[in-house]
């Protein structure tokens, strides 16, 4: 098995992520899954939009495509239809994938194109300095919600399922072991898979809301997870906490999975088992 280090473009380091940022945990889980599944990344394309999360693909020695803000799924759609034999993984953030790129997420899910979309959800725009996102919890402070956020947060997992995604999961940086397992299942799934990964922005979101350090944020996930376990996934209220505001306690793991024909199958580009009919050249 190839080592994680062999999958990195070390000459592109140092990376741009801030101390305490959760994205490195997600990237680490991704790399372990890739190292386990592939002998090398010649046949793996990583496609990303704009934002902190989207920058991580550059550090991975695959076919990497850093696109425009919100549009990663559209580039990935064209690439996958041109080369159905490639494994195409989209890395996006909550602003990138749900605000400016929300329309594309809906339609990629509806088409059930065989892509894996890993959505790094830190409920803020980190790259631009901590503005509110469609995933920012109500009442939270950001640089563009100085009086508290007046809008509710979007649940991307429910959106993706409603739009037609055939694999929907949620994971969190507090449990890298479960995150790794969910990412592995998402990549092996044939059809459109979405993983909502709860990660944290320490530099902007945590500071604006006095949520503490990276480890404090991780443990707030932990408390939410306990609530979920105790309430049998029923809890829907804002987490009452000494470190307010934090996200709703939300169900984790694989939330939805089914099988229906992919776009590539419908177009006759691959056969029903997902084998590519692609002829190079």
């Amino acid at each position, binding site marked *: 098995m190839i080592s994680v280090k062999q999958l990195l473009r070390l000459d592109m380091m140092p990376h741009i992520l801030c101390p305490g940022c959760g994205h490195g945990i997600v990237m680490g889980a991704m790399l372990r899954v890739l190292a386990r599944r592939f002998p090398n990344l010649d046949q793996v394309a990583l496609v990303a939009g704009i934002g902190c999360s989207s920058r991580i693909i550059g550090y991975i020695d695959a076919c990497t495509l850093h696109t425009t803000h919100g549009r990663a799924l559209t580039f990935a759609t*064209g690439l996958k239809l041109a080369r159905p034999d490639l494994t195409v993984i989209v890395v996006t953030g909550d602003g990138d994938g749900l605000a400016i790129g929300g329309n594309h997420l809906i339609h990629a899910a509806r088409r059930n194109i065989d892509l894996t979309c890993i959505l790094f959800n830190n409920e803020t725009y980190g790259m631009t300095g901590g503005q509110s996102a469609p995933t920012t919890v109500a009442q939270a402070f950001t640089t563009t919600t100085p009086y508290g956020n007046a809008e509710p947060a979007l649940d991307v997992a429910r959106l993706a399922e409603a739009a037609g995604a055939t694999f929907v999961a949620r994971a969190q940086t507090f449990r890298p072991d479960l995150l790794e397992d969910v990412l592995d299942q998402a990549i092996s799934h044939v059809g459109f898979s979405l993983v909502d990964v709860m990660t944290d922005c320490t530099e902007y979101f945590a500071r604006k809301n006095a949520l503490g350090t990276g480890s404090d944020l991780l443990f707030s996930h932990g408390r939410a997870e306990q609530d979920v376990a105790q309430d049998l996934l029923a809890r829907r209220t804002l987490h009452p906490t000494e470190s307010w505001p934090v996200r709703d306690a939300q169900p984790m793991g694989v939330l939805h999975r089914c099988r229906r024909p992919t776009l590539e199958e419908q177009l006759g580009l691959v056969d029903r088992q997902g084998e590519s009919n692609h002829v190079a050249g």
Partner: protein
Amino acid sequence: MADRRLLQGNEACALGALAAGCRFYGGYPISPSSEIAEYMARWLPGVGGVFIQMEDEMASLGAVLGAALGGKKAMTATSGPGFSLMQEHLGYASLAEIPCVVVDVMRVGPGTGVPTAPAQGDVMQARWGSHGDRAVVALAPASVAEVYELTIVSFNLAERLRTPVVLLYDEVIGHMREGVRLIEPSPSDLWQRPQPDQRPGPDFRPYQPNSEGVAVLPDFGAGYRFHVTGLMHDERGYPTTDPVVVSRLLERLERKVAAVSDWVPPERYQVEDAEVVYVAYGITARMARQAVDHLRAMGVPAGLLRPRALWPFPAAAVRAATRQAQLVVVAEMNRGQWVYPVEHTVGHDVPVARCLKTGGEMITENELVEQAWSLCRAQQGVRVS
């Protein structure tokens, strides 16, 4: 091999694309370009290609760029409002050097405008629509036959130069039907993007230019693992903010498209001894050509310069064709766009008049003749026999 057929302009565009080897179309419906998508949807599966209707124009060009990196010759077509939405991806494709063809069948704007009436109002949008300084290639056919021919040329330029190419024509050319002799290009007539001659490895430099200033582009999945980004980048494709690297990159991108002016030269009709020179492109040039004959019959030595590549601006050709002119008339269906670089090139010694029309009607031969005739009479120096 040639067969003569009665074709609509948009149909000729689709046939030209297929002949050029286009195997991916991502599009979004918009008048007056939709027929291109409809023909491609019908024909692409039969040649092993893929058609997809995307959710908007940003998505359309995004899918095209993704498919291009997967190794396909790829295109989209739209009209003014959709062309506006594509501007960010056009700039991205220029900087990331991804070959593709974008057809803009121009209609009256701004706004929703007059969706099925002709205009030439996107000429400056094609040049400056995207932010930043961008090298642009845009071609303007004047007939259905030339739509077919220049669509093939567009793919060749896109592949050879690793750049997006815009094909600009108006609603009339898009929708009218003319007899076209379809000449199937031979494989040797078709350019493919340059491929690396070195094997994959850590020394591979995806953005290292060849002698034409163009870098190689292997397909994703061919064993070359590399990074493509819309950030300024070095020859490895890695992001950089180094001012020297950034300015050199922008200079190279501009330099590499400069030869298009020579590769796609303008048509020169009776300009050798012309004292009245019309400068017109697309459908307008056809009336200007008639106006030249009309004026010549009236004893006025008139000529026509018809650029087929609007961008990069063919400054040398404009200078040469207007050197002996006493009057230059720029005719276009807009409020005055391509006339600006013409004025800049011609200078102050020769008057540059504008024959402009908006509202969705073509400029007529009589309008062109009358304007030139009255200006000739008002002006000393033009020989009116």
